[in-house]
């Protein structure tokens, strides 16, 4: 409790010392102007124009879905073996799991945006850059999340398998895998959600998808941006809904 209070006070002090801090308070009136521009038709358009525009978003939307799907699945599959090799209870020798963990931490430190920029340098702008960025990002967090799960499972059944004469791979397959697989699937869905949200931003550095229209329209066509945001929001809600349903069924 004390720590919490300390953090809040510290944070508040920090804001006050920031030279950018506006002592007159937040300019809420400015905020309202922008909100207005986002959600009312601009430049002589009307609501039906806006609606028609939303329909044209179908293509970027599909791009985004494809990008996130590929990135999440491939990244997760790559993370799987790395996670196993990093788990202390499976791989008992530090010589193996230490370098694995360091590699993992390295990749995870790089922000998704930077990953995307690097990808664009290598393969040019477009969907592929986005997929690569998402693969790397997914790989980073999935391997950590996964090895932590592996380390918390009950090793009793693993010991039992070993006592029957099964080798490490078999013991893993029959005692550990059944315990982590549902959790693994749950994580894939969770990371998929995160990636959908990232893809809007990734467009700014060159990947494609639903972020591209946002980026292109930000200066002059705020209403288009608003429409895109609504579509993106709807997508995220649907993905979250499906993900929740599937995850509950896995229980």
């Amino acid at each position: 409790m004390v720590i919490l209070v300390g953090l809040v006070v510290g944070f508040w002090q920090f804001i006050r010392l920031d030279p950018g801090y506006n002592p007159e308070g937040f300019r809420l009136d400015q905020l309202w102007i922008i909100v207005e521009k986002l959600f009312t038709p601009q430049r002589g358009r009307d609501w039906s124009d806006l609606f028609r525009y939303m329909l044209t978003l179908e293509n970027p939307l599909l791009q985004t879905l494809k990008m996130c799907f590929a990135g999440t699945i491939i990244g997760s599959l790559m993370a799987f073996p790395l996670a196993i090799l990093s788990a202390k209870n499976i791989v008992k020798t530090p010589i193996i799991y230490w370098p694995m963990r360091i590699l993992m931490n390295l990749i995870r430190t790089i922000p998704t945006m930077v990953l995307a920029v690097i990808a664009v340098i290598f393969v040019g702008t477009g969907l592929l850059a986005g997929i690569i960025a998402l693969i790397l990002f997914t790989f980073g967090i999935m391997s950590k999340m996964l090895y932590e799960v592996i380390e918390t499972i009950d090793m009793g059944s693993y010991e039992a398998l070993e006592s029957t004469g099964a080798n490490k791979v078999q013991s893993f397959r029959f005692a550990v895998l059944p315990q982590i697989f549902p959790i693994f699937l749950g994580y894939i869905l969770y990371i998929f959600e995160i990636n959908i949200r990232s893809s809007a931003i990734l467009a700014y550095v060159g990947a494609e998808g639903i972020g591209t229209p946002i980026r292109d329209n930000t200066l002059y066509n705020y209403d288009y941006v608003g429409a895109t945001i609504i579509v993106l929001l709807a997508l995220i809600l649907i993905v979250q809904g499906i993900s929740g349903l599937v995850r509950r069924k896995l229980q």
Partner: protein
Amino acid sequence: MIKFVDVSKTYPNGVQALRKVNLEINKGEFVAIIGLSGAGKSTLLRSINKMIPITSGQLFLDNTEISSIKGRALRRLRRSIGMIFQSFNLVKRMSVYNNVLTGRVAYRSTLRTLFGFFPREDKMLALESLDTMGILDKAFIRADQLSGGQQQRVALARALTQQPRLILADEPVASLDPITTVQVMDDFARINRDFGITIVANMHHVDLALKYANRIIGIKEGSIVFDGGSSQITDDILVNIYGRSLKHDEVLGE
């Protein structure tokens, strides 16, 4: 069948769990190991299938000395030894049938088992084991939905599916209620009698050990202080093994 010659075990942290143990167990016996917690019962049991390697002495399994055995040979050795645990150690999310089937995993190639392909004879063996244990009707229920006694029976079925010569049991009934305890102990007795499988069990409850085993081994501080038939046990011997008279929870009752 099992022969300990001057076997000692000292753990890396300095604890000496076994001190020059000499012991011979013959085929078909039902052996119960009794003693205080920490006396060395678990270490003794687990050194038989080398789950815990010994630090000195020799251990013979059917005239094969096991200290140098490892890898494939070790696994082949373990195949014919079943192990029963106090906490059952089943794979909770899997069905009873699949749990029992894992008893055959060591007999098949890694690649096949990876994809879950078991030959028909293995599947039949699994079902037969379930039938022997009287839980065939529970075959496709998830393992964690069964009661403790039933789960231990699944574990026994799994061990039987290995077609073992020997079953090691580490306090197999310590987690069960008194009635289920008797049922599972009866199962052990039946397996020993009908299949001729040697049973070596760590027992927490002394009266159970005396009732079911035909041979008792008493361990105290890493050494064997009693080795004989259950009829030879007297109260004095028990006080020697436990260093005191028995506590309430070391006797099942009746």
